[in-house]
């Protein structure tokens, strides 16, 4: 983590002194923030039996995210490389590395369907409310696909693995569900408020606070109920896909 923070600081200094273009800071930020969250989650997962060394998988995921972010800056179609991240996570899941985070094989079909329903309900409601109330349009252009790829590869996995898989999972083993869900959701909300890559329209941010809070609680409950992180991942992915389709008029 210190290395990641140091890399971010060096990059910021180089951008500030015009040694690097400003876009490189965004690439490094994506890699450091999402890679950092995933690294912490890996570190916590690696302490539970069977124990393993998290350094290699963490470096790989950071490089994947950095590469995808750099590619997406160069050409939006390169955002497809973000999908290497879920592939790598799937590989780790099959190898049993992420058991402690709630990702294990086989996948819970019923729970995943419930997660899909939750994501569709929240996302659908958000689309409806945005369109009816604020007159936002729904779009499905290539930028949306780029954003969805970013969500699928970086935003959703890092949030769910860190805030639910690691943080909530640990907290619920010490405290009650309500306390654990409240803290994990509040932390997740904070992370979204600080995310510079999300739309900044006020009504979108206010709406996002409501929906992300509901999504956080629902995902915590899905993990508690099913014992698996996958339903929450599905719900988040569907919701964020809907979220990316909202375009301010």
């Amino acid at each position: 983590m210190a290395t990641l923070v140091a890399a971010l600081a060096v990059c910021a200094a180089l951008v500030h002194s015009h040694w690097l273009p400003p876009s490189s800071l965004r690439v490094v930020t994506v890699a450091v923030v999402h890679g950092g969250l995933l690294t912490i989650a890996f570190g916590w997962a690696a302490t539970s039996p069977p124990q393993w060394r998290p350094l290699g998988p963490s470096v790989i995921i950071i490089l994947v995210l950095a590469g995808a972010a750099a590619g997406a800056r160069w050409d939006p179609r390169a955002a497809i490389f973000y999908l290497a991240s879920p592939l790598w996570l799937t590989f780790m899941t099959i190898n049993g590395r992420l058991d402690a985070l709630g990702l294990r094989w086989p996948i819970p079909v019923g729970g995943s369907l419930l997660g899909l329903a939750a994501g569709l309900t929240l996302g659908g409601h958000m689309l409806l409310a945005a369109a009816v109330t604020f007159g936002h349009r729904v779009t499905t252009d290539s930028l949306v696909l780029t954003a969805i790829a970013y969500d699928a590869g970086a935003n959703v996995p890092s949030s769910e693995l860190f805030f639910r898989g690691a943080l909530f999972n640990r907290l619920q083993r010490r405290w009650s569900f309500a306390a654990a869900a409240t803290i994990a959701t509040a932390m997740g909300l904070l992370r979204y408020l600080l995310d510079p890559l999300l739309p900044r329209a006020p009504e979108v941010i206010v709406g996002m606070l409501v929906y992300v809070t509901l999504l956080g609680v629902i995902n915590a409950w899905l993990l508690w109920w099913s014992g698996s992180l996958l339903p929450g991942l599905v719900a988040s992915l569907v919701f964020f896909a809907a979220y990316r389709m909202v375009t301010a008029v």
Partner: protein
Amino acid sequence: MIGRRQTTGLLVLGACVIAIAGLAADATAQAASPWRHAYALPVVVGALTLGLIGGTVTALASLMAQAPTLFIRVEAVGLGAGAVDELVSTAVLLILGPLLGSRVTEARRQSERYATILAIQEALGDERPLPELLEALCRLLGDRLAATVTLAVRDGDRWIVAGADAPAGDSAAGCAIVTAGAVFVPDTGHEARPRRRLSTPLSVRGETVGVLTVERSGELTAAERRALVGLALHIGAALENARLAARQRRFADELAEKVRAATDRLATLDRAKSAFVAMASHELRTPLTALVGYSELLATRTFSSDEVRRQAEIMRRQTRRLAAIIDDFLDLSRLERGEAPPLRLADVAVGPALTAAVELLGGPQRATRVIIDCGPEVTGVRADPHALERILMNLLSNALKYSPAHSAVTMRAHAASGKVVISVEDAGRGIAPDALPRVFEPYFRAPEAVGRAPGSGLGLAMVKALVEAHHGGVSIESTVGIGTRVTLQLPAVP
């Protein structure tokens, strides 16, 4: 209670009402639609049927359903009366749903707790051994609490455990026993869902008599834990009540058994006394008849001096027999009052005492031979001479009575560490093993002796009482078909 079908029906009805409310709502109108109150229906139904979760979810759903029109109204007409009306209605539902739901949930929990306590009382009311009761209780609690339940109860020095192994010293249950307080483990392992465990002591009057452990995959809320601590107290009290009731039943059974035994014994004693009265009358009549007969003969007729002497000797013997019977009665009466027979202790030579007893019972004229084997080392005993004579005569007369003709009765005496051991051995039919332990009881006569030879059933009882009054001891050995030996020990002359 509202059933599942009715709940579904009401929720569908609520959804229809909401849809109508949504269609009827005019977001640009100044006044709020009266249909907005229709949102209360699913919220109330959800809270009443599904409790806290139902109330909260339906309240949130109603908020989500109203939000688009509400925001449009605020945007279209500002915070006018209609918008405020709708905002207040929504806020009321947001408060009403969780509040009503939480009350319903709490009422249900209370009801379940009372039902559980009643079920526990019923389960512990069965007259079954404690291990079986605990197993039944574990199953009952496991079903009601949807959890794995373990009960460990102290029974004297051992632990009776139902539902799992005995609690280890360092386990939550062990800590609960040691600290006499509830121990909560938020997660017991590395399963996908946390397994909560609560161990709480079963206390009776401040003493820990056991421990209840409840383990569940999922939530075990603080309210549930508090309820379980209270439940453990109820179980402790119920177990103690069950234990006391079982003890009372055992005591009542034992008492009934003792009363039955005492009644049987009294009936036996009564029969023995009746038999004794009949026998005593007969025993007294025999010498009396002889005395009356010979005295009338002497009074009415004239006999030679030898004949008079002979008849006088017969009368003397019958008088002694009569006196002996009356002495036995008196001593028995004294014994029944718990008094020891009066003794005048003196140094009595054993050999002459044995010889005198033989002579008093007919001497060499008898068909049964009496052998006296008294070693020279036997000096004497410290005893009442009259009592010793009665002891020896009783034993010898018994031996002679039950010995076949031309057999021998042996009277032996030898010294043994400050005591003199005297035994009287016959070659009679012997006594059955089941009757042997009772031969020293007053009025008891062995069944095979009744009707075969006269007797009061007091002889051996008197012997035992007299020997024990001398601080001695008496025992009997007998083999059916071979004979009987009575052995007594008396203190030797120092």
